[in-house]
């Protein structure tokens, strides 16, 4: 295969398969990743083909999963860890923040931590509590971690490849409600840089910046705005640590207006940093304050309310209008 249309889920599966094939040190670890292939089937078939020594069903203990992955990395392995849902990463938080993120620095560079932590995240699937959260701030704020999130199948495939190849720990957020969205994947293309943003739609009046599940919403909003004669540029940030401020700055200097969209709560969401830094970089260019659309300062609500809670087309367009009104 070279170019093939596939879902994000399938692209991730293929990417893991390729990594397992190419490097015997790559391991998959997590709850139910074996026979079941993970609750989202991202690891489907991998244990069958690569065996229990490489695709490892772990005890139900996230701290244990990440803690042993660190040990395996110290032994020269490259573990790709699956956390079953966003809300279940917290038992592993201590190992991630105090150990995984700091080991390389603590060792003055003498050891590397090539560990990928895959987390299906964000909402929109009608799930019960703890299954719809967007905790990216809680990782992006932590020095030593890298944080990324693909929005489409091609990025899913390539960004996961790059994350696994990285010698740094990467928190890999997968937009679970987009798992079944399809797109073309060129498995022989030379990918762009992992931490660079990409303009996914050009425009001149205002920039929308998003990542993961919200890119699609922003693209739809841009299309809707176009019908009203507004030219909206959409930037897929792709990486939340580092954030490609250079790339974003180019867009904002052109459009002079920016709205950042994410599912995570606005308060101290990644949009806060983007607003602060872009304002500093583009102070004399901005016609309006950077606006943010995101979750409220409230626990992710029960499923029947999530459509209202989640930033949707209307809320994004409302922010576009408010920005343009300045």
């Amino acid at each position, binding site marked *: 295969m070279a170019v093939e249309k596939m879902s994000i889920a399938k692209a991730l599966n293929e990417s893991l398969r390729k990594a397992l094939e190419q490097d015997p040190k790559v391991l998959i670890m997590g709850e139910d990743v074996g*026979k079941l292939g993970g609750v989202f089937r991202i690891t489907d078939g991998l244990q069958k083909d690569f065996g229990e020594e490489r695709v490892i*069903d772990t005890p139900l203990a996230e701290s*244990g999963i990440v803690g042993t992955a660190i040990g395996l990395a110290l032994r020269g392995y490259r573990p790709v860890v699956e956390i079953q849902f966003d809300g279940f990463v917290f*038992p592993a938080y201590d190992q991630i923040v105090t150990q995984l993120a700091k080991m390389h620095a603590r060792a003055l560079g003498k050891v590397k931590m090539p560990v990928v932590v895959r987390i299906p995240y964000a909402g929109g699937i*009608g799930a019960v*509590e703890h299954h719809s959260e967007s905790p990216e701030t809680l990782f992006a704020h932590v020095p030593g971690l890298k944080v990324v999130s693909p929005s489409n199948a091609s990025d899913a495939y390539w960004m996961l490849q790059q994350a696994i190849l990285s010698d740094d720990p990467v928190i890999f957020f997968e937009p679970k409600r987009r798992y079944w969205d399809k797109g073309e994947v060129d498995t022989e293309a030379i990918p762009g840089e992992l931490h660079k943003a990409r303009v996914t739609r050009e425009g001149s009046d205002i920039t929308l910046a998003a990542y993961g599940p919200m890119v699609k919403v922003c693209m739809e909003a841009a299309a809707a705005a176009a019908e009203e004669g507004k030219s909206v540029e959409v930037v897929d940030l792709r990486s939340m640590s580092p954030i490609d401020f250079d790339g974003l700055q180019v867009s904002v200097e052109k459009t002079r207006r920016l709205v950042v969209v994410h599912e995570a709560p606005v308060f101290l969401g990644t949009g806060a940093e983007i607003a602060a830094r872009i304002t500093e970089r583009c102070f004399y260019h901005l016609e309006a304050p950077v606006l943010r659309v995101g979750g409220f*300062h409230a626990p992710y609500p029960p499923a029947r*309310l999530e459509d209202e809670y989640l930033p949707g087309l209307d809320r994004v367009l409302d922010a576009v209008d408010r920005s343009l009104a300045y």
Partner: protein
Amino acid sequence: MTVESTAARKPRRSSGTKRAAGAASAAKAPAAKAAATAQNAEPQLVQLLTPEGERVSAADNPDAAEFLSFVEDITTEDLRGLYRDMVLTRRFDGEATALQRQGELGLWASLLGQEAAQIGSGRALRDDDYVFPTYREHGVAWCRGVDPTNLLGMFRGVNHGGWDPNTNNFHLYTIVIGSQTLHATGYAMGVAKDGADSAVIAYFGDGASSQGDVAEAFTFSAVYNSPVVFFCQNNQWAISEPTERQMRVPLYQRAQGFGFPGVRVDGNDVLACLAVTRWALARARAGEGPTLVEAFTYRMGAHTTSDDPTKYRRDEETQAWEAKDPILRLKTYLLASGGADEAFFESLEAESEALGKRVREVVRAMPDPDTMAIFENVYADGHALVDEERAQFAAYLASFEAEEGH
């Protein structure tokens, strides 16, 4: 049916001989036995009613004998009551599964096969005891008097927990695996501080046993000698993972290494579950601290309605467990012993039907919450940001109404 009378709240430990009704004075003996049991590599299973529906006598099984005293007071009427609880719980559970298929619920976690473990333990409790469930304790909720339809709110997606925990001393369902064992331990520390003779029971699964929180709960409860019973339903599976992925030796043995007894009970034997839980609760009340009960049972259905167990387990295994069905064995016994007649079963069937109907009706009528509920109860004392966002969002929503009004 009152398997256990609700004793008034009395100061705890004021008398070492104080015992809950039905809890004979043998609390010490089984503890010793349990410790002895825990030392064998081959697990001993406390069983008082065989899969064939025969009651185990002290002569049959000296191990069981020690626990028999804890169900000496159980009358035939009580047995019918336990049977009824199991049947209605199963019916409710089946109804919920059906409602999920019909799109009325987003998800359901079935207790199919675990009725005896839940009803047996649930009926061992006094009203003033406190329960910390996982997300699967529908049978225990039933015993506590929680209206079963209240359980459905979170699975329908209208709330994250639809009952007041303090009305029935039944805490909200906890989804993060293992967390509630620490809450139970803390609650039990509080019970002890209050000098009450209530006990606390924490439910958890075989998978949960791997979580650090559960070990910490064992440590805290051992160190503070807290009146808590750790009740593990070992249903053999944590989603797709068999118990061998969680432990190398039977779980009940773990307790001893933390300094308290652990017992494995036939989790499909409602009588044995009742007896063993009563014993464990009696220990708690008597100031003897925590106990681990491992109810050896089986998850007959999928993990949840989202799960497909054919991916990871063999039909034969499930079929083998069908022969150990908790409801069937009690029915066999009741029929053989003349403890219940056809009229009983028929009227129970009618009661089941009525319950099913009510559940369907209540669920279908369950309204979606108001949008602005997003902002409710985030804080008890309020928070400026929530106020600001609530007002902004209300204005935003109103802007559409205004437009539509045009």
